């Protein structure tokens, strides 16, 4: 493989990581439609899902162009197997109760906010544009999820206990967000993406502030063995894809 082809393969995989995170989380949030505790939350979660799927469309379209094999955003979303999805496994974790959904959302919103703010200065013009656009929306996502985290954590005994339990359950998955591998390093070296250590530091400050307001305790980091960014997923992703991809698998190219 020539150096240029290797670079483009690396960028393709990196853009898939970003796009798949948004797509899988957006799909997860969509499960709340018609089931949220109140109409306002139904709308809130659905609107965040819509933004995330919008981001995914931009990113997966771009991935298809980088790949240069004529695959559209839909081809990439609907015709890849589980092992070809490169989202961190946190995104695919089940919604659980409302508190668990909110905790997962805070963890990822804060990550995307810190990542996109920095990626707006990417050496890759297209990614810079997508990041600058997305960060404006992500701000509102964190405002929503963060204010709910504070209400749940600093709420009743029960809501506090549920939020703390969800935090304990999901925290180990955050390690993968910041575990820098060769691909992350190559992207940072090329100025395409920020250093994950820098994103991690900013994320930690933001999380600590929110957790403090929510009177929740930050769990300790644990060793992890998750590699969604390399296509090794938890048992949950397959079910999401089965539902999301069913129509295009059964009727390839179907349109409406």
């Amino acid at each position, binding site marked *: 493989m020539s150096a240029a082809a290797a670079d483009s393969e690396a960028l393709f995989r990196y853009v898939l990581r970003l796009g798949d995170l948004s797509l899988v989380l957006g799909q997860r949030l969509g499960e709340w439609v018609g089931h949220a505790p109140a109409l*306002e*939350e139904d709308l809130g979660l659905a609107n965040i899902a819509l933004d995330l799927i919008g*981001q995914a469309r931009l990113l997966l379209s771009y991935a298809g162009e980088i790949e240069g094999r004529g695959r559209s955003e839909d081809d990439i979303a609907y015709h890849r197997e589980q092992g070809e999805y490169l989202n961190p496994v946190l995104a695919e974790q089940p919604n659980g109760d409302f508190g668990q959904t909110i905790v997962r959302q805070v963890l990822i919103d804060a990550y995307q906010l810190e990542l996109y703010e920095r990626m707006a200065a990417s050496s890759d013009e297209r990614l810079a544009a997508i990041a600058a*656009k997305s960060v404006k929306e992500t*701000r509102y996502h*964190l405002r929503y999820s963060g204010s709910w985290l504070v209400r749940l954590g600093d709420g009743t005994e029960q809501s506090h206990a549920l939020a703390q339990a969800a935090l304990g359950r999901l925290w180990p998955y955050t390690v993968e967000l910041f575990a820098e591998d060769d691909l992350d390093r190559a992207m940072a070296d090329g100025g395409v993406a920020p250093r994950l250590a820098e994103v991690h530091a900013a994320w930690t400050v933001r999380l600590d502030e929110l957790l403090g307001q929510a009177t929740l305790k930050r769990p300790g980091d644990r060793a992890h063995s998750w590699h969604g960014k390399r296509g090794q997923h938890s048992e949950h992703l397959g079910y999401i894809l089965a539902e999301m991809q069913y129509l295009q698998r059964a009727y390839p190219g179907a349109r409406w």
Partner: protein
Amino acid sequence: MNTPALNLGNPPAGEDRIALAWQALAQVEDPEIPALKILDLGLIRFVRVHAGVLEIGLSPTYVGCPATEVIRHDVVQALRDAQIGDCVVTSVLSPAWSSDWITAAGRQKLLELGIVPPARAVSKLREVLGAERPSACPLCQSTDTQCISEFGSTPCKALHRCRACLEPFEYFKCI
């Protein structure tokens, strides 16, 4: 992201064509808030002619907003109806659309519809977190208002309530 160029026969020349395009675009409504035109929202970034093809730069408000597809379709239809030659609609992401680009007329129309227009965007993104709120209730002008939900009937609006007159109202978010 581009709509294929349409072949629409003989176009009028240069400047006229661009002026006619703007006239046609001035008729296109926002699908969610029809009283507003897309020009009120500042969605058209440029109109230019390149190699005989009229190119329209269109920005999405929110990346996942379903209205974007409708607007793109309506823009193409308006230009087709105006019979001003081949045209292509290009999606412009950068710089990202800002609610600051809503015109003074657009802000006035929002207010008349009972939707509070957005605060002016602050230069530092972080400052918006937690700080932003509508200036006053559009019905009774009380400043004693409360956010019910960060997301209203569309991604671009939040739902608020006035604690003086007790009426709910929408706020067009600042992005």
